[in-house]
């Protein structure tokens, strides 16, 4: 039986977009060095929950947050917290691949550079290491100076993964990382995530239950902004305690 040690602790998290109450009193722990899947029908707050974990929701105008999110015991919503430091620790890969308007090399090197890494040799090593970690190195090592936009969608998404790894995060958040990709590229990303969980805590959002079954160690089910159920994947998928969960898993809705 796995033991789950909490890496991120979400306590009574409420998120409002203007008057709209998007997340209601979410309290749950994210286990360390495991893959946690946030599942649920579209539009129910999964992405909002995910983006709360590195405060990317701050970017949305008119957002209000109450509650706590503790990363390694520290509430990231405290006043005086260095947001850029949080985002270094908790990285995010978006649904649509979003390469920066630069070369492949510069994309991966961007993270370290903005945190003041300057040594050329160190950067070279980091870039190579991260590209290898996502299985992209052999494909792009001759094309490092080319604009990242020339890569295929699958390659771009892996590039975004490599880019996120370059700042040495502790947590990787993935927002439906394969939904914009073809099945083969999607599988590649999934394989990478399975390998990466040895060193990183991974949280991903998906609306494809089969993907959650394939990858998740821990499952969080969000419906209409509420935390309906959470637990080890094995338990939630075979013996869900909440009728809503059961209905969702059986494909009644969503």
């Amino acid at each position, binding site marked *: 039986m796995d033991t789950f040690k909490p890496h991120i602790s979400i306590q009574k998290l409420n998120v409002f977009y203007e008057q709209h109450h998007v997340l209601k009193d979410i309290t749950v722990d994210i286990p360390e060095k495991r893959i946690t899947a946030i599942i649920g029908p579209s539009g129910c707050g999964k992405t909002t929950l995910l983006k709360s974990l590195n405060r990317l929701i701050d*970017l949305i105008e008119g957002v209000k947050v109450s509650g706590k999110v503790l990363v390694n015991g520290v509430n990231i919503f405290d006043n005086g917290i260095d947001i850029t430091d949080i*985002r*270094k620790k908790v990285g995010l890969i978006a649904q649509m691949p979003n390469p920066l308007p630069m070369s492949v090399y510069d994309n991966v090197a*961007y993270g370290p550079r903005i945190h003041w890494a300057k040594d050329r040799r160190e950067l070279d090593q980091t870039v190579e290491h991260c590209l290898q970690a996502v299985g992209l190195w052999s494909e792009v090592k001759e094309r490092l100076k080319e604009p990242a936009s020339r890569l295929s969608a699958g390659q771009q998404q892996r590039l975004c993964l490599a*880019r996120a790894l370059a700042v040495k995060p502790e947590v990787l958040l993935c927002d439906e990382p394969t939904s914009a990709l073809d099945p083969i590229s999607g599988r590649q990303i999934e394989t990478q995530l399975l390998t990466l969980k040895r060193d990183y805590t991974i949280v991903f959002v998906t609306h494809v239950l089969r993907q959650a079954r394939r990858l998740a160690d821990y499952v969080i089910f969000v419906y209409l902004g509420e935390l309906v159920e959470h637990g080890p994947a094995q338990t939630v998928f075979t013996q869900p305690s909440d009728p809503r969960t059961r209905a969702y898993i059986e494909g009644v809705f969503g």
Partner: protein
Amino acid sequence: MAAVFPSLVLFIMAFSLSQRSTPILATQPLSELFFTSSWRPMKGEFGFYPFIMGTLWVTGVAMILAIPISILCAIYLAEYAPSRIRGAIKPLLDLLAGIPSVVYGLWGVLLVVPLIRYYIAPLLGGAATGYSVLAGGMVLAIMVFPLIISISEEVFRAVPFEVREASFALGATKWQTVKHVVMRKALPGVVAAIILGFSRAFGETMAVLMVVGNVARAPSSLLDPAYPLPALIANNYGEMMSIPLYDSALLLAALILLLVVFVFSVVARLSLLRIERRSV
């Protein structure tokens, strides 16, 4: 079809102005006209050099002042300002753009010229009337602000959110995101805005005319007066017909303005078009 009108007009303008310019071009080659400094129409001497330099100096000063201020303001409006402030300032910019040229000139005479004469010139160690390149440049810069700011701001806002999000997700500060990501994507558009601003500044007549001194000598310092091409035409059209070749010379000046604006407009518009198409 009425739609042919604009192209037709441009063609006719270019044609008629060049036609009327040919007499003077027949007396001297263009390069000589451009580099001679003596402007004595009565004696048949038409050296354009002072006016070309005057235009370049004034426009140059205006752009040096306008570019940094406009871009910084545009970044602020697009990236930092809360929507209420942005909503308040944008109409103000439209207002600024709508103020008639002579009113700017009036203001220049009332405020800028004395400012230079009594405060700035002594600081720079020179004595000046205040009617100077600097005055023209300052007034012109303010006239050009709304143009550069509005185009640049639009270009910044057109940069897709996802790219910004990617930068923030890696832990960049807002300024780092602007500097490395937004600017990179927006640069062609901002350059186009600057080119259009330059084009506008180049041809502005009345406001500059009222504060720049109108002395037909190439300026050698900021405090010197100047005589830009548009002012040349505006001040002397009355004598055009009474002195031989004068009309041709002035219309050549008009033709030069037309061609410069033409080239700049085409370059700027084509690059803006390419940007629009790429982001679709």
